[in-house]
């Protein structure tokens, strides 16, 4: 442990100490209540769709004010209560022991079996939890209860997001130059709050949904030519990528443009970056980037927009070749999006209506089909220049 402490970075040590103390204080209260004969209970904000509120002022999804009570002396809640205490203990012990558990580790560490005699005298056996779904669920409860994100409690998850650009950062005790990553890229670490921005030479951030497109833009020197920080979320963004993007926007005042497929799935990825996700709305305050802009690919890029006199980026024959017929699930998803408060803007209504009318979608790769340099030197710069994006 001492060696662990010595070898870990100073920011880690500090974060650890803060998180451990916060957890300890929150749960010591419960223990003290028990010792004076009070019923132990947790009051936790509800993580349900009904308690997810779109804050139009901040432009993000936040947790509502509804809470629920989890009392140990309530037979319906006692198992969850036990799981919550167990999870809190494992996280706390990992923190003070200088460990970096993953959520899978937490699951295994807490899983044991209780053998007991039931009300009919038979022997019963029960696991503290059976599936990771259960341990993940109480982890979320602890995040909202102690008001710490898992990253802040040094719980690691798989790295997914990548970044390149003319920028230097400090990660741990090392300085990394994001412009010197060769053909590779810097994997955004699961604890982006521990990253320190040293200096940056960029005018905007471009986030692309697709890893393959990211690699093409990187090798074509897009970020150097247009002074961009280039990021990919490789599909649905993880928390670290979202937090990193948010910090770039908030701390460095860099505009953020998001490029996804032209389909409801791509739109939702954009909205997760911009306003947060429904299941994890409690994190939005820290993870969402309300000022992020949807650069494309938009329906009007494909079909044009007569009202604005906008022409399509595709010729008649290209469009015929590139577009894909929408599936039933795409249509259904689009209809759901129409119900969300944050998609009820003029830009989005137009976007979704065209989609519903044409029942067609398009992948970003289709644009590279027109030539990679069409994407890097025509499409993206023109869209940014013309402010042809949806907010």
């Amino acid at each position, binding site marked *: 442990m001492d060696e662990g402490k010595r070898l870990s970075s100073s920011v880690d040590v500090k974060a650890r100490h803060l998180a451990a103390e916060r957890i300890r204080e929150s749960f010591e209260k419960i223990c003290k209540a028990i010792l004076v004969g009070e*019923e132990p209970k947790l009051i936790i904000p509800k993580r349900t769709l009904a308690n997810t509120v779109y804050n139009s002022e901040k432009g993000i999804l936040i947790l509502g004010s509804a809470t629920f009570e989890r009392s140990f002396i309530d037979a319906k809640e006692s198992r969850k209560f*036990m799981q919550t205490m*167990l999870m*809190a203990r494992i996280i706390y012990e990992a923190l003070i022991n200088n460990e970096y558990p993953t959520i899978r580790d937490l699951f295994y560490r807490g899983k044991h*079996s209780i053998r007991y*005699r039931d009300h009919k005298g038979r022997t019963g056996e*029960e696991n503290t939890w059976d599936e990771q779904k259960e341990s993940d669920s109480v982890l979320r409860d602890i995040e909202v209860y102690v008001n710490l994100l898992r990253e802040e409690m040094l719980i690691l998850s798989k790295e997914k997001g990548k970044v390149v650009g003319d920028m230097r950062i400090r990660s741990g005790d090392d300085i990394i130059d994001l412009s010197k990553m060769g053909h590779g890229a810097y994997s955004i670490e699961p604890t982006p709050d521990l990253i320190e921005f040293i200096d940056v030479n960029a005018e905007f951030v471009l986030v692309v949904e697709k890893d393959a497109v990211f690699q093409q833009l990187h090798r074509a020197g897009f970020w150097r030519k247009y002074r961009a920080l280039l990021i990919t979320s490789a599909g649905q963004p993880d928390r670290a990528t979202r937090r990193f993007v948010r910090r770039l926007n908030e701390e460095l005042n860099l505009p953020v443009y998001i490029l996804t497929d032209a389909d409801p799935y791509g739109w939702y990825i954009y909205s997760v970056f911009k306003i947060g996700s429904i299941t994890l709305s409690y994190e939005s305050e820290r993870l969402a980037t309300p000022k992020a802009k949807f650069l494309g690919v938009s329906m009007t890029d494909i079909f044009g927009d007569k009202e604005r006199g906008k022409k399509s980026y595709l010729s008649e024959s290209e469009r015929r070749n590139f577009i894909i017929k929408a599936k039933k699930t795409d249509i259904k998803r689009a209809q759901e999006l129409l119900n969300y408060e944050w998609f009820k803007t003029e830009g989005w209504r137009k976007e979704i209506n065209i989609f519903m009318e044409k029942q067609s979608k398009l992948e970003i790769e289709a644009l590279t089909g027109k030539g990679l340099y069409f994407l890097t030197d025509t499409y993206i710069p023109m869209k940014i220049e013309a402010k042809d994006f949806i907010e």
Partner: protein
Amino acid sequence: MSTLEKFRAISPAEFFYRNKEIAGFANPARALYQSVRELLENALDATDAHGILPDIEVSIDRDANRPMVYRITVKDNGIGIPEKYIPEAFGRVLFSSKYVLRQTRGLFGLGAKMIVLYGQITVGEPAEIISATIGSKKIYSYRISIDVKENRPIILQRSVWLNTAGWHGTIVKISVEGDWSRAKQKILDYVKRTAIVTPYTNLVFRTPDGEIYAYPRAIDRLPPPPRETKPHPHGVDIEMLKAMISETKEQTLLDFIANEFQGVGRVIATRFLQSYGFNLEKNPKELSKEELEVLAKALKDFNEFRKPRAEYLSPIGADLIKIGLSSILKPEFVDAITMKPVVYEGHAVVVEVGIAYGGAIESLEEPQLLRFANKIPLLYDEKSDVSWKVISENIDWSYYDIVFPAPIAILTHICGTKIPYKGVGKESVAEVPVIERGIEEGVRYVARSLKLYLARKQREEEYMKRAITIIKYIPEVASALAVFLRSNPEPVNPRVIEDRLFELVKKRYGEHIKEISSPRDIILSIE
């Protein structure tokens, strides 16, 4: 002596008249069953009906040399038989208390006589009877057979011993042809069921295989014995009327009607006789055949007599039924009820119903039915009995939250001076509406009681289950929380937190978890 039975000889013709329904010796298995049954019933009638707590031993011995020959020995501590009646009681057709009615198990003396006869025909050995009455200085022993033609006992041997220990009771040993292997189950059932309704009896049964079935006395209290009562006019037929008239000492019809029947006083007797045009002063022995027929019919038709009275009967009583069911069946729940008396053809009838549930009772697809009539178990012809009809057709068990298979036994007891048996075997009771209604109401009462019990039990279990749901997590929660406590000033032992949490559970579920004194009582391990 008031406890002495009155014995009288009757003619063979009358013997058959009164007992034509008695069969039961159809084959060796049935004969063995019937013999044990008659002797055991006599033993009980000689004890509990006279206020004596019965000690009864029944044993059956296999004859070493002759196949299918068994010697039955029944020993009781009853009132005994006066010496001069012993040959008569076993060697001549006798019965007790001719024109007075009393609830008895069998017809006293008759069963024993049948067995002596049956043994004599099939095996050819005399019966051995040893008996002493209460306070008798001597014990008498007789070996008797029957002169069938003359209906007369033949005394083969008589001995007398001094009764130094003050013993009283009767021992009967009779050898009969039987079939133990086929009769075994019925006899065992019979003895066990007898034990259920006579929990005040010490009953020991030894089989030919040397097995001992002991049913120790569960309570020292007897039900009030049945008392004699006069016949009710509605329950008398012309033969009985003739016999009563030939016996009576009354000189006038008015005295005869007013004094020889129950439910009749002088006022009602006068009104009765006048309304049917009889001369009050006429000597009953002088009635013509036609007048007798009119009188017999009038006695049945006249509806101003008082109702037959039930206080002469001897129901088992709800308490004893519950004790009997508990001690023999070892159930988790019992209840019983004695219903209000009803009237059947001029006889008072009392219906009793008991219920036993769970515990050692086997789960079956239908209720186990234990039928009794005048404290005698009825084992045969179950499906044609009114009690079976009630529990299988009239009652919808699902209404009482019983889902079969279920561990449930229903006891029905019908007692009265006349039981409406179906058929000659006297093994099932007919579907007489008043009796059927009585049984049904009784079953509904005890079934309701069971339903309440089960609901209460389920509620208790639900609470217990909930409490255990919580308690089983206590060690886990306590050891987790102990980690967060600053050891200030001293570290807190997780056991202290466990105790506090358990106290909180007790505060909420206390009355339902009395058996649990600590979480460790139910936690076996945590791995």
